[in-house]
């Protein structure tokens, strides 16, 4: 077991009359943050994500040019001091469009992750802990959809509901919760057999209480990782939908949409930068979320205490 470092911000070490040295008290969160800070990749990813969030907030109020202003600059202008990322086929400022595109990506990613977290965890806990017919039913549904590429139901639902950012979130969440439910179900299946769950049942705890104080916290590590990974997956799916032409309605800027336009200009023989910049934005964001998710798992899983 780790001998804990005595840092100034923790409780004072006290001598106790019996001779035992009372150890400092470190909360789970403080302890986890300390370990997260030691993970360089995760810190870099975190910094990147914070900057990205700031940039999104800024883009709500200010962009270098109006992202939808046609003719802000010459069409297909090469990146320059005035237009850092150049201009697209309609002469719109690329940088402004990429900045605004972050809004859609982050909104879709976070909202989907939220739905996945709530629905997936709840359904998974119930299926894994209660077992029986309810588990059979949930597993059946999940298994049916497992054989279908998630993009298909998303497109189908999206076409049915109509084009809007909100509907993208619904369309992606409709299948994205299943991965989480599957994972949580597996965790619950193994945790329900642990002795402390047995002990809780033998002390008369209610099922709801057991689910949320014993099963859920012990599955938290994998749940956090899965939730963090569901953000980039949702962003990618959203971008892919727009890329295919099913996404956010134009002229709203979105990374997938910009990339799609960029591909057209590339095919038309123009420079690749219009495709390049949104692609870089997507890739960096996905990488950052993945590294951050890994870092979180390493830091906040109490069973990996060092």
């Amino acid at each position: 077991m780790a001998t804990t470092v005595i840092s100034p911000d923790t409780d004072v070490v006290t001598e106790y009359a019996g001779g035992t040295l009372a150890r400092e008290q470190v909360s789970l969160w403080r302890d986890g943050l300390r370990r997260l800070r030691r993970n360089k990749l995760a810190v870099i990813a975190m910094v990147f994500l914070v900057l990205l969030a700031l940039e999104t907030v800024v883009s709500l109020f200010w962009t270098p040019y109006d992202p939808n202003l046609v003719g802000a600059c010459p069409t297909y202008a090469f990146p320059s001091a005035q237009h850092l990322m150049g201009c697209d086929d309609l002469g719109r400022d690329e940088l402004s469009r990429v900045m605004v595109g972050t809004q859609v990506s982050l909104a879709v990613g976070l909202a989907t992750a939220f739905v996945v977290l709530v629905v997936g965890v709840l359904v998974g806990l119930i299926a894994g802990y209660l077992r029986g017919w309810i588990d059979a039913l949930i597993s059946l549904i999940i298994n049916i959809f497992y054989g279908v590429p998630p993009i298909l139901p998303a497109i189908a639902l999206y076409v049915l509901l109509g084009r809007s950012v909100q509907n993208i979130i619904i369309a992606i969440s409709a299948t994205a919760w299943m991965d989480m439910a599957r994972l949580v179900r597996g965790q619950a299946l193994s945790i329900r057999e642990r002795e402390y769950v047995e002990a809780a049942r033998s002390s008369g705890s209610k099922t709801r209480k057991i689910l949320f104080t014993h099963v859920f916290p012990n599955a938290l590590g994998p749940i956090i990782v899965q939730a963090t990974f569901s953000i980039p997956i949702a962003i990618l799916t959203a971008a892919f939908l727009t890329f295919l032409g099913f996404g956010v309605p134009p002229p709203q800027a979105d990374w997938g949409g910009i990339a799609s336009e960029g591909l057209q200009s590339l095919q038309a023989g123009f420079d690749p930068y219009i495709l390049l910049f949104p692609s870089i934005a997507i890739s960096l964001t996905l990488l950052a979320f993945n590294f951050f998710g890994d870092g979180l798992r390493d830091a906040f899983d109490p069973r990996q205490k060092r």
Partner: protein
Amino acid sequence: MSDPVLDVKHLSTSFFTDDGEVKAVRDVSLQLYPGETLGIVGESGCGKSVTAMSVLGLVQRPGRVVAGEILFKGRDLLKVPSDELRQVRGRDIAMIFQDPLSSMNPVLRVGFQIDEAMYAHDKIPKEQVHSRDVELLKQVRVPDAVNRLRDYPHQFSGGMRQRAMIAMGLSNKPQILIADEPTTALDVTVQAQILELLRDLNQQLGTSIILITHNLGVVAGLCTRVIVMYAGEIVEEGPVEQIFEHPQHPYTWSLLRSLPRIDANRKDRLRSIEGLPPDLIDPPPGCEFSPRCPFRIERCFSEDPDLAEVAPRQHAACWVTMDRAYAEMNAGSITDTRPGAASGVRPPKDLEPSAAETAETAMQSEPEPVGADEQA
């Protein structure tokens, strides 16, 4: 003697597996009296823990209590609705488990977990819970209780964790504490401390204790009465001194004999009981111990003996009993304890497979013909 707090009548619990019905507990009856410490001993898999789990209604699928009554305060726990049974667990009957590390949730503070046991029931007023957990930890002799409550289980040593588990068990002042091998995972000095703690708590609080163990030493140190189980059945029951000094069932006798002795010659082999416990899907027709019993007679293969009084307050389920084995089969001086060795009785023809098995084990030890010890 007053009325028992817990009266288990003809309890049978089975597990319905793909291979068939495993009759883990068969027709077990036991009484626990107020303030009593009752030991249940037996080998692994003999049904000790399943009996305890059945009492609390914690037997999980594919297991099920198939028959019997569990009377607690005049109510049959097998018939009360599940929510009422949940209220009984922890409040009236508490249980502590073998491995104190895995019995505690690793991600929750010890104090939180003790509180939880109290919040689950309304016996302790909510505003007293926090002061009570300090008191409880002090009661189970955890030093520096106030600070220790904020620790996580991994910051506790094995003995401390078991103390915390006992504190949790006692938090609602239950009438019965079921301790399922509470000292097995602990080292010997800590074992002694925990047992001493249990004894003190039993005397101070008057809590009745059921102690489940395979360790006869633990029983001798703590219990007033002991039940010996074999293959899902009670084979002997009585006051602890009587059982230890005059065991009447050959299984109890063999168990006691197989205790390692510190004064034994180093070259002597440790004594064990030949053979293995029977298959509980298809138990032998007569006495379950007959395939391994040195003192068996023909009757043992066909008829299953019931518990019968063999001495005041002592019951054994045996057609022979050790009194007769000592008198007629030289039990006091035999060295060969292979099945049927003392009585010279071989299993009847239709039980040959088990006979072949015993022959095999016999081959590995001294090549002495079965029945050589039969007295003249």
